[in-house]
């Protein structure tokens, strides 16, 4: 057994210090697709606004149809004014849109970028809809009220409601030496009776509806539900399947929506910290994440 003592010391500390310190891998993470600012390419926009003849010849309807058709899960919508929006809660990161139209679509950058750990379903739509801000603030306030009781240690339980198996790997990675979720005072528990947070993966398989609901009902209040991954949010490619509910929100109320197919382990940590109010997220979602030292005080991370 002594061999393992030495082997354990071999690589020194490999654990990330994120979010207290920046981490390259978290910051360069390739997130769901988003429209590039000034969405419709300038040529096309110019054609639409200034030259009616050109606009007629290149029927804008055709262009919006082709843009929308790029997405296998229907995440892209083109509004009448030419505004392109991506519903990151539907994006499965296939990259079709980014490869075909790099002038209109790009990857979002970083595990905590726009669309990561959304407090409302609509917050996943980028650029955001006009009424999203107030709704997010209202959701944040409601969540804060409920999570005020949660102090330093948070226990969570995972339920697979029809995942493809990859989300489980990423959640399990949190227990490994690199992410080591315990350093943030977050622990997994076998019993829903001990759980504060429910991580749900999968498209909402009908066979899991009752077990998922039973697990949720078995948790004490206050409880928080995190939909982990695009499948859990919208069903992804299986949103139209008769055998799924097209996401888990049909079965349990979702507090945090975490897009990704699957999301990165950093994204899951971020969602957890947002969920329990341990992370102050500025209204500017691209600002770097930082740990709170609020009234509940103390260092939350070593």
């Amino acid at each position, binding site marked *: 057994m002594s061999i393992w003592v030495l082997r354990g010391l071999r690589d020194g500390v490999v654990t990330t210090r994120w979010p207290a310190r920046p981490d390259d891998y978290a910051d360069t993470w390739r997130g769901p697709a988003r429209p590039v600012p000034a969405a419709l390419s300038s040529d096309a926009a110019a054609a639409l606004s200034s030259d009616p003849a050109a606009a007629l010849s290149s029927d804008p309807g055709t262009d919006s149809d082709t843009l929308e058709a790029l997405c296998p899960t229907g995440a892209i919508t083109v509004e009448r004014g030419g505004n392109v929006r991506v519903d990151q809660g539907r994006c499965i990161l296939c990259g079709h849109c980014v490869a075909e139209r790099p002038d209109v679509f790009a990857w979002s950058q970083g595990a905590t970028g726009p669309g990561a750990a959304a407090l409302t379903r609509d917050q996943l739509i980028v650029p955001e809809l006009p009424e999203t801000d107030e709704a997010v603030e209202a959701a944040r306030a409601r969540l804060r009220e409920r999570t005020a009781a949660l102090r330093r240690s948070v226990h969570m339980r995972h339920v*697979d409601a029809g995942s493809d*198996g*990859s989300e489980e790997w990423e959640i399990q990675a949190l227990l490994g030496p690199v992410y080591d979720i315990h350093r943030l005072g977050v622990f997994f528990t076998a019993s829903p009776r001990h759980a504060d947070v429910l991580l749900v993966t999968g498209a909402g398989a009908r066979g899991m509806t009752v077990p998922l609901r039973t697990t949720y009902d078995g948790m004490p209040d206050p409880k928080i539900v995190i939909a982990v991954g695009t499948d859990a949010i919208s069903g992804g*490619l299986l949103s139209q399947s008769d055998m799924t509910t097209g996401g888990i929100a049909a079965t349990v109320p979702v507090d945090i929506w975490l897009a990704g197919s*699957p999301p990165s382990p950093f994204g899951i940590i971020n969602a957890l910290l947002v969920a329990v109010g341990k992370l102050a997220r500025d209204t500017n979602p691209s600002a770097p994440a930082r740990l709170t030292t609020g009234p509940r005080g103390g260092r939350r991370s070593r």
Partner: protein
Amino acid sequence: MTGTIMQPGVKALWDDVESRVAAGDRFAGLFATRPTEVAGSVGVAGSAGVAGVAGSAPITLSAHLATAGGIDTLEAALPPGAESYPALTPRLGAAFWYEREIHDTFGVVPEGHPRLAPLVRPCSPETPGDRALPRHVTGYGMFTIPHGPVRSGVLESIEYLVETPGEAIPHLNMRVFYKHRGVQDAFAGMTPADAVLLAERTEGIASVAHALAFSHAIEQIAGCEPPMTAQLVRVLHAELERIANHLDVAVRLADAAGLAVATARLALHKERVMRLVSRLCGSRFGRGVVVPGGITAAPLLPPAQLRAELDQLAKPIAADAAALMATSSFLDRLRGTGPLTPERARQHGALGPIGKAAWPADDARLARPYDAYRALAVPSARSHRAGDALARLRVRWEEVDQSFRLLRQVADDLAERAPDPYSVTCQPASGRAVGWSEAPQGEVLYDVRLEAGHITRCHPRSASFHNLVLMHEVFAGDILTDFPFIEASFGLSVAGVTL
């Protein structure tokens, strides 16, 4: 190298399957198809002569047999309106789950099947009788522990029904249907470009292998071959996926044995492998790389850097594997645990590490090579016969070693090659083909039918589906505390079983 042979009836089909299995072919799957009306025409090729409304259209049974150089498909159509057929399972036990799946999906009854309980489709709330606990072993003090579908730990949903007098496990049953997602039906109507994305998500931890098997089927229909660079990159991702999966199994086994340092070390290696994958393509699971006709883009790391990274990974993994295999308290838990006899493995045609640990199971990379495996020197594996959890882990470590050797060849070849295009046009209109690949869990099969550029039916068969049924049979003298070791040593994904 695949052929389809139509038999006049089910009995002739079973006779043929039985005699070919006796002659050395491996039973690789049994699927059913019912043609449906798609846009005014009969949607499924192969049964095109028999038009009819969905529901009364005759069902075609397709048995797949792995031969020396390919996959042969033997078929027979049931008479129109038939609601049953004589079961294959009494003659060939390996069809046990396949016929239950057919019964679940089409409602057609295989007469003489020993146990037609729901397998892949969830019990409906209207038939609560299906939810009753099955009891196979009765006697003083015997009870059934239903374990799942929500189990302790971060695991996929499955229910194990353990019949036990307290410690021994004389019988085990599995209910796998909880997370059935309707993947097969979702394939219908998709274009190959979209369907490959669903193939990647059919069994998420073997995304690359599933995308490969699917793409191979489409490429067979189109009669095209990806450029050599694409073939090499496909092997690159397939082998990295294998290493990550085998490390995952090792992590679970070490965790089950309570070896905290070994668990952490192996998890670190797995994380490093996944990070290498994400730096190559942006996804930690190698998604979005393989498409019918080739790959989407060049690896994001230059070959020289890839080669250096591989060398940095290989050495510490081999060292920790050696240390693990020298830790006697760990080996004690694996040796003799969950043994699969060579006879049963042969009868069932057990796949992947589970099969290779018990009988000379074939490896698609060697037996039916595809992509760059045809050009690379694939190291052949040592033979094992013990069939226990320890032998399964030994097979995995040998495969990790093989994978690194293959990866070094790939990195060197990529460095030498002038860049050719990453894909060829591959947009077949109609046809049917069976594609395969060797996933970390074993052989994956995709039976794909296309019409007018859209999929009419796609039946994925993962190694997880074929192998999981063997868990019924490996509890010889094992007790409840052996369960985590046996489950981990199988290394299967439930997503790939229930689809």
